[in-house]
């Protein structure tokens, strides 16, 4: 009897204990990396971790090796331009060569400190920067893509110490990519939070619905990868060959579709507005990009984005020869001796233009001329009539940057570094550009002047809830958002002035006529 009781008791205990005992199983993965012997060791460097990863994930590094994220190089099949971060010039921090050790803190690899980086080395792939879940993995500028292995000052003299990375802890907790991992670089493009894009900054790490209806952390909670669906480590979507107009309809399981899965249409199709009054909006989708109405403003999360950057004023020093830093009333830097003058903006209305996905860069060696007015760092293709364009919102980033007035080319200055030519240390353009152009393998006359440039960034993130989308009158009015966009008749904005004049004269004439006639009748009748 006693034994029987005990059996029952034990049975109960197990029944209640076992499911609980099984509970810590991570339900979002089949592998708990903290249980892997290979990761239960002290790692001295990032590449050592990568070697451990590759022990199981044998193909991962060679997959990564084929991507833009790794090569920073992309051959545009449309115009054969050699692009990628390694090659392009922008009007933010300008260019990568000669500044590798700083710029490559955003490279998914280890050790790219100069032009001799080994792109074939598997252990140079940085698995952790994308797969970290702890938020404790940080690559610092100047370390050529390595995280700090000992306590390190972020920038020499800043006094801000970043502690040595606990590689074993980070490695044992790897997981899927997240807004935080992608954001570690993409939120900070251009050298700081929100600087470059305007529609991407750290506020998207954990946004509310007002900021982004899809990434809403308490709602749909999309990660970047939900739309930018990666296969074999190749992440969908491109800044160099974007899809401006996706007419392929929504992707459906089981239907083979190798088109870009990151477009709005790849989920919503081309007629997403429900029946009833809103259905008229579907008549807009062959003219206006979804983003135009659904991203009414950028930089909405409380982080300002840079709107302009004038390098020509850089280098002013205090009477004591010290670099200067000026801030606006919100504490944001608007002048830095290293970089020149900035303007910043929050809740910025984008600019609008026809865009067909064709982007032509002004590369090193392309002729530029100050007398041309503004040099377009990237020329955005598109027109009302090419059948491939839609009206897109853009952040147009304007600036002035150094160029070679003799050779008539843009230049690639050596900005970052602790040496005697780096601009940010020595404030001398000639030496900095000479070093930079040498690293780029391009001729430099020795003369420096500044040229006005602009750069267009198609806007696609920070999608607002539908209640906050643009209303009809935002564009359908005489001086609305699309006031400057040609090639399309917009009711409420456009009219034929001659017909209007004739029409009003005719109606007004009729009115004057009948009033006169009536007055005459009135007068006569009184007689």
């Amino acid at each position, binding site marked *: 009897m*006693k*034994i029987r009781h*005990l*059996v029952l*008791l*034990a049975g109960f*205990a*197990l029944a*209640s*204990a*076992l499911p*609980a*005992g*099984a*509970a*810590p199983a991570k339900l979002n993965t089949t592998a708990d990396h903290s249980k892997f012997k290979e990761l239960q060791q002290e790692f001295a460097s990032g590449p050592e971790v990568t070697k451990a990863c590759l022990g199981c994930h044998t193909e991962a590094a060679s997959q990564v090796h084929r991507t833009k994220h790794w090569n920073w190089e992309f051959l545009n099949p449309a115009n054969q331009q050699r692009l990628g971060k390694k090659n392009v010039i922008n009007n933010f921090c300008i260019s990568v060569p000669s500044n590798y050790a700083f710029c490559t803190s955003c490279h998914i690899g280890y050790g790219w400190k100069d032009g001799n980086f080994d792109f074939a080395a598997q252990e140079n792939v940085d698995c952790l920067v994308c797969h970290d879940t*702890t*938020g*404790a993995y*940080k690559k610092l500028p100047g370390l050529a893509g390595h995280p700090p292995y000992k306590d390190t000052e972020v920038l020499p003299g800043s006094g801000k110490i970043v*502690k040595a990375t606990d590689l074993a802890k980070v490695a044992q907790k790897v997981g899927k990519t*997240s807004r*935080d991992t992608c954001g570690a670089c993409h939120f900070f493009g251009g050298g700081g939070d929100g600087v470059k894009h305007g529609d991407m900054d750290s*506020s998207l*790490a*954990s946004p*509310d*619905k007002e900021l982004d209806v899809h990434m*809403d*952390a*308490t*709602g749909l909670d999309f990660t970047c990868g939900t739309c930018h669906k990666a296969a074999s480590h190749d992440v969908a979507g491109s800044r160099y060959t974007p899809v401006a107009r996706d007419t392929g309809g929504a992707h459906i399981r089981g239907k083979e579709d190798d088109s870009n899965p990151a477009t709005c249409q790849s989920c919503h199709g081309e007629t997403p507005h429900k029946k009833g009054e809103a259905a008229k909006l579907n008549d807009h989708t062959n003219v206006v990009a979804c983003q135009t109405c659904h991203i009414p403003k950028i930089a909405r*999360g*409380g982080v300002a984005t840079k709107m302009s950057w004038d390098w020509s004023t850089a280098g002013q020093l205090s009477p004591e020869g010290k670099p200067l830093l000026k801030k606006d009333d919100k504490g944001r830097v608007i002048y830095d001796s290293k970089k020149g003058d900035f303007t910043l903006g929050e809740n910025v209305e984008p600019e609008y233009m026809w865009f067909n996905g064709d982007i032509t860069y002004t590369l090193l060696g392309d002729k530029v001329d100050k007398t041309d007015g503004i040099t377009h760092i990237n020329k955005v293709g598109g027109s009302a009539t090419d059948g491939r364009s839609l009206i897109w919102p853009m952040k147009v980033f304007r600036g002035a940057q150094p160029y070679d007035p003799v050779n008539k080319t843009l230049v690639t200055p050596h900005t970052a570094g602790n040496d005697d030519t780096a601009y940010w240390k020595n404030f001398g353009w000639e030496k900095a550009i000479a070093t930079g152009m040498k690293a780029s393998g391009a001729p430099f006359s020795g003369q420096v002047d500044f040229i006005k440039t602009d750069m267009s960034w198609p806007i696609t993130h920070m999608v607002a809830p539908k209640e906050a989308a643009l209303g009809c009158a935002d564009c359908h009015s005489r001086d609305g958002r699309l006031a400057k966009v040609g090639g399309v008749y917009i009711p409420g904005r456009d009219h034929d002035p001659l017909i209007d004049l004739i029409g009003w004269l005719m109606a007004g004439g009729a009115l004057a006529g009948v009033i006169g006639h009536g007055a005459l009748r009135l007068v006569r009748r009184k007689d």
Partner: protein
Amino acid sequence: MKTRRILVTLLATGLAAASASALAYEGDWKRGRVYYRSVCTACHAAQAGGSIAPSEMTKAQWQAYLQADKHAKGKDSLKQYVGKPYRASIRAQNKAADKFADVPDEELFEDLKAFVIKGAKDGDAPASCS
């Protein structure tokens, strides 16, 4: 007798496993971040005279604060604002409280702890409130 011993052993292991599992929970700082910002900050900003950023205190200060379990200068319990009844009471207006309505109290508290420790002044990634 042998059977009995086996049963006792079984029972003991079962209980041990159960308690170990409770201890094994490790705070999810991302979930903590959402709760901190959407519940704590939202209310503090609207009703309690301004928000408090995790980076305003050190790890040790946060540890002590969480340990003391005193909210509003000791007027009430901090844990109360993480508990299920509180979440249930605000879930109609608060999406985070709604989303995490069924998360065990201890887990959510650990989540919050993980976030503030990580975001503390001397934490891995000092965090602001938004």
